[in-house]
């Protein structure tokens, strides 16, 4: 089974738009939205949810007010500033958004007033779309553990792919280079980095390239809206050449791309045009890459 990850470092470069078009162009695959904090792929793929499951996050501390004696030792030892006196006074309480579930507070509580509970930290879904199964999720607002949820939905996607005999998993990645991206990248066959010709795009691509090397995942680059700044697009291409990174395609700025998003349709199904054409040849290139890396 192969796993193709669409990723970007910098947010808003067009990962989800490109991933949605690849979902239209690629046959026999399971699609996964790994951006569990701000999942948007479903807005273009129009899924029908078949299965919904809760995702339990890391346990969090809860202080039982009837047992708490108000000594405040828990608050003193907490390194995450997650425990504070309640407004009514006398007892302490936990700020769930700050608690990291380390349990250190339970070590010092003399009254056994603290217990740990796994919260429902989000939901994940297996859905049907016109373009095959979609595995997606929504992390609860303010929850930690987005990396863990990414691992979970990748595992679900692998099971779906095995059951239904699909050889490919197509993943829309989260932005950044922190824990959710790390979770998405682990085990990927190929990473497609979507970048833009801006100073920020160049800067963030460099960090992403280092991350992909760290995880030994081969990476190719797509420059989106390359003609918005030809000078920076050239700088990106020069950088890629110096680093021995392949540029798999350049997508021109095309007002149709924004229109397609506004209409909630993948660009390649919305309208032919220069951007859709470029995406078509990018997919051919990526499909070749996947075929040769088998």
């Amino acid at each position, binding site marked *: 089974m192969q796993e193709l990850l669409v990723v970007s470092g910098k947010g808003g470069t067009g990962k989800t738009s490109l991933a949605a078009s690849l979902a239209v162009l690629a046959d026999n695959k399971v699609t996964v939205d790994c951006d569990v904090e701000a999942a*948007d792929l479903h807005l273009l793929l129009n899924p029908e949810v078949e299965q919904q499951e809760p995702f339990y996050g890391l346990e969090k501390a809860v202080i039982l007010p009837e047992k708490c004696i108000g000594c405040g030792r828990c608050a003193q030892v907490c*390194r*995450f500033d997650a425990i504070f006196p309640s407004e009514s006074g006398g007892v302490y309480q936990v700020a769930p958004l700050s608690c990291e579930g380390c349990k250190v507070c339970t070590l010092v509580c003399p009254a056994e007033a603290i217990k740990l509970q796994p919260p429902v930290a989000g939901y994940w879904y297996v859905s049907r779309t016109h373009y095959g199964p979609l595995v997606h999720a929504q992390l609860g607002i*303010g929850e930690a553990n987005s990396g863990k949820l990414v691992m979970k939905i990748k595992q679900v996607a692998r099971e779906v792919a095995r059951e239904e005999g699909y050889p490919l998993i197509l993943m829309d990645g989260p932005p950044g280079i922190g824990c959710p991206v790390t979770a998405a990248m682990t085990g990927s066959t190929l990473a497609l980095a979507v970048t833009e010709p801006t100073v920020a795009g160049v800067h963030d691509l460099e960090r992403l390239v280092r991350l992909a090397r760290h995880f030994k995942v081969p990476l190719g680059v797509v420059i989106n809206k390359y003609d*918005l700044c030809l000078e920076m697009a050239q700088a990106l291409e020069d950088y890629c050449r110096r680093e021995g990174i392949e540029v798999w395609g350049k997508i021109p700025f095309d007002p149709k791309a924004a229109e397609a998003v506004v209409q909630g349709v993948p660009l390649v199904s919305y309208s032919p045009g220069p951007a859709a054409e470029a995406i078509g040849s990018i997919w051919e290139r990526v499909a070749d890459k996947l075929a040769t890396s088998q």
Partner: protein
Amino acid sequence: MLISVASGKGGTGKTTVVTNLALALAGDYKVQVLDCDVEEPNLHLFLRPKVYATEEVTLPVPEVDGEKCILCGACSDFCAYNALALAREKIILFPELCNGCRGCTMVCPVGAIQERPHRIGVLHRGKAGEIDFVSGRLDVGKPLAPPVIKAVKEQDQGKGIRLVDAPPGTSCSMIEAVRDTQFCLLVTEPTPFGLHDLKLAVGVARILGIPFGVVVNKSTLGYTQVEDYCREEGIPILLKIPFQRHYAALYARGGALVSEYPEWERAFREVFLKIERLVRENARTASG
């Protein structure tokens, strides 16, 4: 005034807003910027500060004294993050998984565990003209952004206008950047993605109890539901920046709207005046 600039969706223009606000206000106020998007810090590309100090950001991780360790496994059993594992002859540490809670040092029955600093990123301090500049940068391959964000926020000088450039998303990193700020400016774009992610970010601001307003970037894309949503929810829209090809080109090269167009300097100053008013109103409502 401590103001955070955040968004659910990435790439909507947070850094653009921070850059322009800082430059527009720097003549009249003392301004400090805090780049808390430590996975992809970009503010320096636009403000081009002179960096005068760089320091490491570290997390205290355990160090097990092999002489004293009795291989009882109390530390690895306790660790909620699986950062310690009991092998046949020693305890193995995975520093990337450690959150620095020091629980292991507390449960070790023989006092074999000490803490030592483990580098996860760096902090830069500098000056961009009159603007005080602080930026955090997570090391590539290190997953834990919140401690670096915390280190940046500890540089808050506590007076004048401080602008926090937050990371995208709605999880722990974004919360760490936004919490304890007096106002949160949410930057969005008028697309179904922008709207969907704006609603999530609004949810965070409400949970944290921080007054907030919206900036609509690329406001001319033709999707009116974002503004409809703000109107229905009573969320103030403080600024709209239309999509213009020459604005995009200016941004691409690291330029700022307020440096090129005096009308944008005025517009960003007005944004700050609106924020001041909203914060005042919010304080009045909260106290009365």
